[in-house]
């Protein structure tokens, strides 16, 4: 019996990605669930980017990197699609009938630098 080991691609062949750190401000300072954020972001990205955008951009919302205290969550996309993601985020005006303001704090290449620069240093 041979164990099938999935070989990882070499670094040059892997898809490049950028971690986009996003902050939201909700009405009455309420905290939103990550599932609501995921559903609205997917809905809007279907509306503005279409299926091809989601397929090509490798859009992925990282559930582990949701900081509910600081209203911060992290999304990763390909570097070419960061501007498209900004445009989609701008068009989110409300979640569950609550007015929401979303904006990008920063973009980084690794999770480590994203934590150091934008998440740990930011105010609650």
């Amino acid at each position: 019996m041979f164990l099938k080991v999935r070989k990882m691609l070499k670094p040059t062949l892997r898809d490049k990605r950028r971690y986009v750190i996003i902050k939201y401000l909700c009405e009455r300072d309420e905290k939103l669930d990550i599932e609501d954020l995921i559903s609205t972001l997917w809905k809007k990205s279907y509306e503005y980017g279409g299926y091809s955008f989601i397929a090509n951009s490798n859009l992925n919302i990282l559930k582990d990197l949701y900081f509910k205290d600081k209203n911060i969550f992290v999304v990763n996309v390909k570097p070419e699609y960061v501007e498209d993601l900004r445009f989609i985020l701008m068009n989110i005006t409300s979640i569950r009938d609550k007015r929401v303001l979303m904006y990008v704090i920063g973009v980084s290449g690794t999770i480590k630098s994203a934590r150091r620069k934008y998440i740990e240093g930011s105010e609650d």
Partner: protein
Amino acid sequence: MRWYGDIIRFFDDKGKELLRRNFSVKYLGLAVDYKNFNDKEFDVSGFDFLMLYVEEDSNHLSKIKKSKKLLDKISIDAKGIVLFSQKYEVLRNAVDKHLVDAIVDLPLSFEMFNIDEVLIKKAAENNVSLIFNFKTFTSLSRQLKVKYLRNMRKILQIACKKDVKVLVGSFAENFYELRKPRDLSSFLYVTYRNLGFSLKGSSNNYYWFYDFLKKMNMKERIYPGYYVFKGEENAQTDIKR
């Protein structure tokens, strides 16, 4: 380091703080309806420039003349008149006679597949800038959003050719309508990319506020190629064209 600007429609200390601190807004403009404007009541101390807006009406020409008189009384560095209209004839008339400094919501005034190059050419001659209003874009239906983006792309194509100044403003009326100016620039980028421009190619439009303020006679702060701000220790020299 780049500095951005925005145009809003309300007074709120919380909003101003968010814009200045978190959104790194250097230039902040206020757009006020000329009907609501009284030079004694309004405190425009936190803003860099003021714009009186006039919506098209049967008496819009007389309103523009009145607003010009109002502007003369106010002591602020940069000021101008903006016309909100969805009628082509009204915009054409205002631009030809050089009555206004900027026009807003141009993409809505055009019929589908019928972009007129003459209006933008006249705007270039008379130094009138075009402003895209993000607030109206969000309030439109799906069909009209498609029309808006399509017309915007065609307008930008002609504006690049004629060297017309292009701006994007959030025109927020409350705190939750504010948008980060860096994000607002992606609104232009989405259309620019379809025209074949790269992000670097469209970067001139990131400096739209400099052009706008330069037009508004703020020559003390701005020099061609380099922008030096008064009252700051570190002069910015990294912005080049």
